[in-house]
């Protein structure tokens, strides 16, 4: 399996929508064929439309607040010794996480298609919160599908969604988490695709949703490339870009500009949710060698049993608690361009504690998984190695979990 150079990864699929000949595709019910085709056509027009790009850039700058800052974590680096640790503080974006990029683009597409209703799924509640913000901003009616278990554990984001006027539809089927929320959202779209636009909250789902989301979050690495050049004059010789991976939208956005680089110069490291140390359950299909399966309209590595039933997952981080993963990350894994590993719940919590102790930074449990890997490898690396972590979410939403697990206010 080989990557092509100078073509965005989101466009390196074949005519049937498969990356590397086997990941992705569009395994959808007949009813969704037409709306998916319409969306595909519309998106390919819009992304080549100068006015649309102008509009996107305008809202990225003035609404989302691009660029987000790129800083050195001096204290943490000094404490650990070894590599320099830097962070791209994507959580500065309006709303507190990278999900705002995809949400804003979907709202703009929804407007362009003349639809008034927008629906989306959410796990940690960030995708839902951002979609509700974007819907409010652009005058769209919004419904968010969310697992009942996640509604309980991510209350602050639910409050925000309701405040923005969105309706939260609790999903009680299955494990009552993100996987069921995505299913229910797709079912809703099947029934309402004539009037309603669907936003998939990550680089997962049928081919077109992977593309739209990746195209949106790619803003992160466009900014980072400029910032790295400003900071170091040129791209340093040893960089490691560490990002958490649930569906994989922030990781793709963080990496997209750097995929063409040699991996000995820029290593891409994805950190999945290993779940509780003592549990057999996890949400790490890439790093724990799950088999390829079809979930939510796409082929990818999926946590499943021999029969093809999707496994329950477990993670302290609702945003990573998903049995599948983006087909583009499967492609990056098999092409050996990116390396995938996992951090346990306990690792992530420890990393959160350490980062907040040394830095004025409050990463949510999702990027805390990435920090756990950075903390693990930094001491073994040379001083001229630049580790950059995407701090893609803010821990405000994790208030209740952190209080329970750490006894902290």
């Amino acid at each position: 399996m080989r990557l092509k150079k100078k073509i965005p990864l989101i466009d390196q699929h074949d005519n049937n929508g498969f990356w590397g000949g086997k990941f992705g595709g569009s395994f959808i019910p007949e009813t969704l064929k037409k709306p998916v085709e319409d969306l595909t056509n519309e998106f390919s027009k819009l992304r080549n439309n100068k006015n649309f790009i102008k509009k996107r850039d305008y809202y990225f700058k003035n609404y989302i607040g691009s660029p987000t800052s790129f800083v050195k974590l001096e204290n943490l680096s000094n404490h650990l010794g070894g590599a320099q640790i830097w962070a791209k503080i994507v959580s500065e974006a309006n709303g507190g996480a990278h999900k705002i990029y995809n949400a804003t683009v979907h709202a703009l597409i929804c407007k362009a298609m003349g639809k008034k209703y927008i629906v989306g799924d959410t796990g940690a509640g960030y995708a839902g919160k951002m979609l509700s913000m974007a819907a409010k901003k652009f005058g769209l009616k919004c419904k968010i599908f969310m697992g009942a278990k996640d509604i309980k554990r991510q209350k602050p984001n639910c409050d925000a969604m309701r405040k923005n006027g969105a309706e939260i539809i609790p999903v009680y089927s299955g494990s009552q988490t993100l996987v069921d929320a995505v299913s229910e959202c797709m079912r809703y779209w099947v029934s309402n695709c004539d009037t309603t636009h669907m936003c998939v909250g990550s680089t997962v789902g049928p081919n077109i949703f992977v593309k739209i989301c990746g195209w949106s979050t790619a803003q992160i690495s466009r900014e980072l490339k400029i910032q790295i050049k400003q900071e170091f004059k040129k791209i340093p010789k040893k960089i490691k870009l560490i990002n958490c991976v649930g569906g994989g939208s922030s990781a793709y956005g963080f990496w997209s500009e750097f995929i063409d680089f040699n991996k000995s110069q820029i290593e891409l490291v994805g950190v999945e949710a290993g779940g509780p140390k003592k549990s057999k359950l996890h949400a790490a299909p890439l790093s724990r060698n799950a088999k390829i399966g079809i979930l939510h309209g796409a082929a990818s590595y999926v946590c499943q049993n021999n029969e093809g039933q999707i496994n329950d997952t477990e993670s302290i981080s609702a945003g990573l608690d998903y049995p599948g993963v983006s087909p583009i990350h499967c492609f990056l894994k098999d092409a050996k361009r990116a390396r995938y590993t996992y951090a346990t719940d306990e690792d992530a919590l420890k990393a959160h504690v350490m980062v907040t102790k040394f830095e004025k930074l409050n990463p949510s449990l999702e990027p805390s998984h990435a920090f756990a890997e950075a903390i693990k490898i930094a001491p073994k690396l040379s001083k001229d190695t630049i580790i950059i972590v995407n701090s893609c979410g803010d821990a405000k939403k994790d208030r209740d979990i952190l209080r329970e697990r750490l006894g902290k206010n």
Partner: protein
Amino acid sequence: MNSLISKAFSAARAENRPALLTYTVAGDNTKKKSLEILKSISNYADICELGFPHNTPIADGGQIQTSAYRAIKNGIKINDVFSIVKNFKKLKKNKPIILMGYYNMIYQYNENKFLEKCKKSKVDGLIVVDLPYPENKNFASKCKKRRINFIQLVSPTTSKIRLKKIIKDSHDMIYYISMLSTTGGKLKVSPKKILEKYNKIKKQNKSKNVVIGFGITEKTIKSLKNADGLVVGSSICKEISKSIEKRQNAVTNVTNIVRRLKNKIL
């Protein structure tokens, strides 16, 4: 030689009525019970669809989801589904059975192995909800080689050009989804409108048997009796749930519903 599916349609046509197709989930609520239900309702149904349950169904409504989760919880495996079909066919060898489900189950089992197993257990047809045209071309031709009917789905959103291609590639039966909905939704389109679209499909090739499904209940079935066939699923699954809840005999209750459905289209 005509397939059992074609014969079932011809027989119904000879009686000047649509064929009645039922949908139940294999293993709902146990392997034994679902076989009993199948045997009993097949006295009234012309073709029996049997679902192989998946725990992430993206096109099914609440009733069928409940049945599927119940069956999985009670331990149903793909091989059990095949043995249910095999046992059923021992008793009713001429009653067509269509397996219906999601592609991941087939993919994990291995396409070829799955189809061989279908052949051995005398499965007559297959509906794969999330394997649309043209992605299903290869699989559909594998089915054809083994004389298993691959049933193409058509929906209100299917474009004219697409419709033509799908019909051209279809086997004996085409499934028309009556409305934009998951299974078990309330019929939100008038029967007249549904039949208009149905006739457009029929016009393309009269020799294809076109059935209508989604939203068909005891209340609505009569209004659509001009179709070649009508599928009832969620109403039946709902009855199973109700029977379990009330500790009544699901076999009797479900059979009664199917009998009443049949009487409405005679």
